[in-house]
């Protein structure tokens, strides 16, 4: 049983005052439509979190927390692989259009980092199943994303000097991964929405 399914049982007190509807598992004909709806919804959530992060002050221009990766983290347990990858792609595309960076190296860094992080989290989940928490998944995603971005920075921007940045960027990845992972873990144990969506999609993972 997936973590989201277990979470549904743990979440004994709904956060909303409204009664929580019980959703039966999806019928196969509705499955694609439902995955499409959830993927679009998670992408919208990523755009929103990206906007929130855009408004937060950054101590260093390159440093960011990666709030917009939280929907991808939840999607590990909710979406089949093709929809999961589409979510990662649309997240990059949407953020690049909304922040106006599509034709810059930033979009390329974002694409490489997001796709690597998404694949790393999916791989860790597949190999370790639920022995790894959302915190572990998030750290794996953040560190792999930063590693690929430093490699890309070596090729495109910083040259050989990028090796001096590697320890700092990996350290930042670890810290931001832990912070995001804790936030996501806390949210996942309390969220009535996630329990409800998990009930529908948790069984249809690839």
């Amino acid at each position, binding site marked *: 049983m997936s973590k989201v399914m277990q979470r549904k049982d743990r979440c004994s007190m709904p956060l909303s005052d409204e009664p929580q509807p019980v959703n039966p598992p999806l019928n196969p004909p509705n499955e694609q439509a439902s995955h499409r709806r959830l993927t679009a919804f998670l992408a919208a959530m990523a755009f929103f979190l990206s906007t929130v992060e855009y408004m937060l002050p950054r101590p260093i221009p390159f440093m960011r927390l990666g709030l917009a990766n939280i929907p991808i983290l939840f999607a590990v347990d909710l979406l089949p692989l093709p929809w999961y990858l589409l979510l990662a792609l649309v997240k990059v595309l949407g953020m690049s259009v909304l922040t106006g960076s599509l*034709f*810059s190296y*930033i979009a*390329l860094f974002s694409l490489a980092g997001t796709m690597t992080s998404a694949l790393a989290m999916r791989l860790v989940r597949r190999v370790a199943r639920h022995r790894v928490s959302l915190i572990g998944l998030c750290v794996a995603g953040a560190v792999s994303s930063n590693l690929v971005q430093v490699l890309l920075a070596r090729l495109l921007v910083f040259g050989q*000097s990028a090796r*001096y940045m590697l320890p700092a960027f990996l350290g930042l990845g670890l810290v931001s991964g832990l912070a995001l992972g804790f936030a996501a873990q806390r949210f996942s144990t309390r*969220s009535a929405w996630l329990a409800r969506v998990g009930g529908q999609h948790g069984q249809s993972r690839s």
Partner: protein
Amino acid sequence: MDKAAAETRRLARRDSWESAFSPGPLALAGAALSLTLLFLPGLSGRLFIFAFAALCAWACGRRLSVATTAIVMAGIVGANLLVPLGRVLVKFGPIIITETALLEGLEKAVSFEALVLLSKASLSPALRIPGKLGSFFSEALRTYERVLEHKLSIHATTFFRDIDAVLISVYDETETIGSVAAVSRQGSKNKLLWAVACVGLLAVFLSAIGWF
């Protein structure tokens, strides 16, 4: 007071820019100029495009930070100077500034920021992407707009609780959005224009990663 006046002027510039250019052709122009920048040899041509891009980015009324741009550029030049390359120009104790490293650093810093400024000037949130991916993207954007409508109901003290309530409320609304999206999934009239844009975009990425 000055800040408010500056903000009003910025919004006025944004409105004029958006009414003067359609999002599709503007994005195409941005992609073409980005390509030109990447193929330009030497620093002078890139500096010219950088100056033009800065002017466009200012005129389009997007938020810009001169300090952030300067810090990023200084960081890129500084990082390139860490590995000495070419003739020694100046020595400040342990810091050695070499000619080739400095030129390469400046070229990379100018290109990096010019691409950012070009993107800011040429990409509008109103840009619609063609095809199935485009219709899916529009669906996500519509949902995003619904989420934004609830932003005032999210408070720092009850952040998780508020977010959860918003998610439940908007997720229920998306059933309606999905059916509207199915109706709007129609072919674009400007297929050729979009094909050129896609090829340009692909070329930008390929040239950026050094494939040609």
